[in-house]
């Protein structure tokens, strides 16, 4: 699905009905709000329409013009808020910021001039103005609930990196009954020493695939009880600064991020060897996708 705002005119039935949803993939309508105007970018609000909030996206359909409607996925809504100050905007509204696929600065200047030729995919702001401002708080709450249903999709792990243990290798490890994490094949190797063929990153990164084969392993059930996760679990050893960086960049860690972390670790002038006594100088992060 393309990021950002887009045209949306797929309605169900003949009467001005609800938008067509992707029900096969579990999309459900959560809220319908009649009498809502929409203001896109710096443009003036468009004629009242109806706002539909589904578990995947926000849709606005015009009440008068059946060919007019917009949709934006929750995945693209980076921020939403209630705006009430008349100095900032004439009517109380739900203010949203939209993440577009690209970074460009120039759009703001050109938008206002040629409003008809507005490229929806570059719109970064959208305001939804309900005719009844007392609905704002409940709309905000519904926005929050639905946004939480839409975490970042997980990117596929890139298999070719040899520092990721394959699921098979892990099965072997688990079969040995080792309840502790194996830090590396060679526990005495230190982070600062990467001479020879030894892959440095391999000592600090482990990818564990928790699939159903591990259902019986006790040490894993504990973890699963606490978070319900069934998929990839990544442990990364890194400096606190890097750890903050990952954490702040979002909880969904793709393998690309792990790659970056591995590169960062390469650059760290760590002379310490990787064993338990040195752990507190860095951070272990667990990520459940």
């Amino acid at each position: 699905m393309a990021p950002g705002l887009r045209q949306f005119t797929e309605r169900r039935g003949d009467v001005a009905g609800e938008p067509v949803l992707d029900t096969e993939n579990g999309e459900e309508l959560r809220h319908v709000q009649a009498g809502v105007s929409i203001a896109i970018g710096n443009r003036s609000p468009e004629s009242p329409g109806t706002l539909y909030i589904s578990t995947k996206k926000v849709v606005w359909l015009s009440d008068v013009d059946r060919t007019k409607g917009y949709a934006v996925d929750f995945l693209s809504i980076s921020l939403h808020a209630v705006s009430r100050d008349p100095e900032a905007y004439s009517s109380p509204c739900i203010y949203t910021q939209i993440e577009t696929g690209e970074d460009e600065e120039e759009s703001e200047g050109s938008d206002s001039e040629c409003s008809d030729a507005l490229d929806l995919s570059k719109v970064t702001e959208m305001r939804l103005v309900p005719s009844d401002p007392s609905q704002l708080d409940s709309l905000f709450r519904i926005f929050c609930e639905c946004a939480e249903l839409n975490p970042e999709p997980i990117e596929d792990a890139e298999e070719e990196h040899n520092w990721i243990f394959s699921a098979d290798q892990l099965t072997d490890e688990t079969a040995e009954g080792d309840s502790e994490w194996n830090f590396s094949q060679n526990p005495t190797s230190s982070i600062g020493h990467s001479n020879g063929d030894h892959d440095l990153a391999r000592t600090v990164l482990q990818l564990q695939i928790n699939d159903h084969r591990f259902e019986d392993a006790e040490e894993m059930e504990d973890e699963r009880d606490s978070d319900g996760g069934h998929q990839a679990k990544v442990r990364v050893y890194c400096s606190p600064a890097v750890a903050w960086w990952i954490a702040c960049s979002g909880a969904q860690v793709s393998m690309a991020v792990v790659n970056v972390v591995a590169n960062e670790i390469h650059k760290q002038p760590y002379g310490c060897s990787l064993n338990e006594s040195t752990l507190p100088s860095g951070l272990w992060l667990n990520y459940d996708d």
Partner: protein
Amino acid sequence: MLFFSYFKDLVGKEVTVELKNDLAIRGTLHSVDQYLNIKLENTRVVDQDKYPHMLSVRNCFIRGSVVRYVQLPPEGVDVDLLHDATRREARGG
């Protein structure tokens, strides 16, 4: 989940959330979820000249994936506690 729990402990404290689009919003941390989506209250935009339209916003929901940094109040960072938590986490919690 360490950071999730950590941020939960910061609820009620004043933080500054810096987004990847350079917008920085200061406010009271209202809640945080497992994706590090963040809800702020009593917000104000740090660079008001650049983002005048955000002036009116008093509470907002920020998608975790667009957050670049979260600036923490110094008194909200208990280094010993964090050390302890990371040790426990390192042992498989």
